[in-house]
């Protein structure tokens, strides 16, 4: 099928889990697919971007490069079954410019996770303390891989705040978006993953989904990481660390919880991470 399927999320929200599942769904056999061979890459990988661009990204100014995004997506959209992972917000938080082409898009799977847990997981992933990470989640200027001029292998990826990120995708007018909450992926995997496959046009036969889920279970992924390492981990830190919902309760201080709720309360409430009266759910 033509058109891009975007696996979109703020970091540490279930995107890699879904990529592991998808690799096993599409290519899996009796054994789980190698975690270092998922196949679905980041749209911001420079070598891949350059293939559609026809120039090297390092030959262009940041402004010239930014102006090529939608045209590059339209080239990929003509290929067979293009699927990319992305951490950018749908719109650039700095100027409101769309970062994704509607016509090039077939479907968006948006992965959403309680920002209290995102803060814990993202902090571990970055190797930075919780307060630093909480500030980053509230900073509209946040850009991943922003130092691309020092020959980073990925293009800069504007994310903005966690709340901006969520709203930019789920409220994008006319965009075919299906939201998966990480907590629901954990609680009801067969149902939630099947619905996502159906939405995106991936195979959805029950036995096939079940096997892919088994081969991409948290324990299966962690075992592979322990045995041979995971290229997407940063530094020497474990990527597949806990894979649980609610671990913020043991980690975050009341002040840290309150800082996140204060900045992101509205979006949290909308997706069930905060009660209507502003209190935190019991579990």
């Amino acid at each position, binding site marked *: 099928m033509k058109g891009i399927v975007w696996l979109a999320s703020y970091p540490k929200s279930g995107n890699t889990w879904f990529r592991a599942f998808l690799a096993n769904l599409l290519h899996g056999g009796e054994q789980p697919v190698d975690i*270092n061979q998922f196949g679905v890459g980041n749209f911001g990988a420079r070598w891949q971007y350059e293939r*559609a661009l026809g120039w090297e990204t*390092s030959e262009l100014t940041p402004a010239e490069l930014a102006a090529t995004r939608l*045209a590059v997506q339209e080239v990929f959209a003509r290929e067979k079954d293009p699927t990319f992972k992305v951490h950018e917000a749908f719109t650039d938080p700095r100027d409101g410019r769309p970062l994704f082409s509607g016509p090039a898009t077939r479907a968006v799977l948006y992965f959403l996770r309680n920002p209290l847990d995102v803060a814990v997981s993202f902090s571990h992933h970055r190797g930075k303390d919780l307060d630093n990470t909480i500030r980053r989640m509230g900073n509209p200027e946040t850009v991943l891989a922003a130092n691309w001029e020092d020959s980073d292998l990925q293009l800069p990826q504007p994310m903005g705040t966690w709340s901006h990120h969520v709203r930019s995708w789920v409220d994008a007018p006319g965009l075919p978006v299906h939201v998966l909450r990480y907590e629901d992926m954990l609680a009801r995997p067969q149902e939630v993953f099947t619905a996502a496959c159906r939405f995106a046009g991936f195979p959805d036969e029950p036995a096939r989904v079940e096997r892919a889920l088994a081969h991409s279970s948290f324990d299966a992924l962690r075992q592979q990481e322990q045995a041979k390492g995971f290229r997407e981990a940063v530094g020497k830190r474990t990527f597949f660390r806990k894979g649980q919902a609610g671990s913020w309760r043991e980690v975050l201080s009341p002040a840290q919880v309150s800082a996140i709720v204060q900045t992101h309360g509205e979006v949290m409430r909308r997706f069930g991470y905060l009660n209507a009266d502003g209190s935190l759910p019991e579990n």
Partner: protein
Amino acid sequence: MALASAQLPPHRHRVYGLTVATWIPFPELETAPADARVDAVFRLAEVPAQLEQPQFTGARFQAAPGRLLAWIPGVARYLAVDGEEILIQPDAGAIDSDVRALLLCSPMGGLLHQRGVLPLHASVIATERGAVAFMGHSGRGKSTLAAHFRQRGYRVLADDIAVVSFDAQGRPQVAPGLPQFKLWPNSVKELGGEAESLPRLRPSMEKRTLMFPEAFHREPLPLARVYALEADRLRDDISLTVQPVLDRVRLLLEHTYRAQYLSGLGLQKAHFQSLSRVAAAVPVVRVVRPENDRFHLEALGEQLIADFSR
């Protein structure tokens, strides 16, 4: 090709094995004698917004047999025609050095493909055994490594594009490119220099240029060995592995300069034949270094010298 000298532009330069005649002088290129046989022409002309029958349309290029159109808004539109000329239409207000710098990238790549030579995305140094090429994707350290070898006293043929052709005996050889490295500030620093002291490649970019006329190797050299530079987070050491022939072809294709133009130009089959000839004649070695903030130049240099001097 017969280009009548009366119609030719006045300036003569040598670049990527070609003598070009151009209306715009290129201070970054070496001068060629006025009576040298001209291979290709750069001229200012009206360049169409689109090709009439593009076989492939990318985000900033179109390709058809004998035609490669490439453009960057605010700088210029370029059209490489039949391997003989590059037409240039600068945009209003474009900076001359930007127009020149970009011409030597994609439009030059199109022209080289049209001429039937094999441009690899690689830097090249001269060794006692012949030319040694370092292929790699952007950011993998091709230029930095070649600049490091220059510091060790080696002469350098090319920084960005290794133009491979076949000599009278059918052996692969590499043509000299131009005596200029393009380096990011972090590379300049790792080489022991200061980026601030070097001119920018384009005024609004951090990337710097470093000219090396004294170390430029101006004659073609037989291609002795090719390295594909890679990095891997899961490795703690540098490894060199000679590749079997089929993998050589795959790697040479992966590192062909602007390979995405080939299908539109209708040159895939001819290109594959060239790759196969190179793969049969020249060892290709995968070099994997640990992926972190540094290029490990000293250690890498030592291992490479030990390998290509054998």
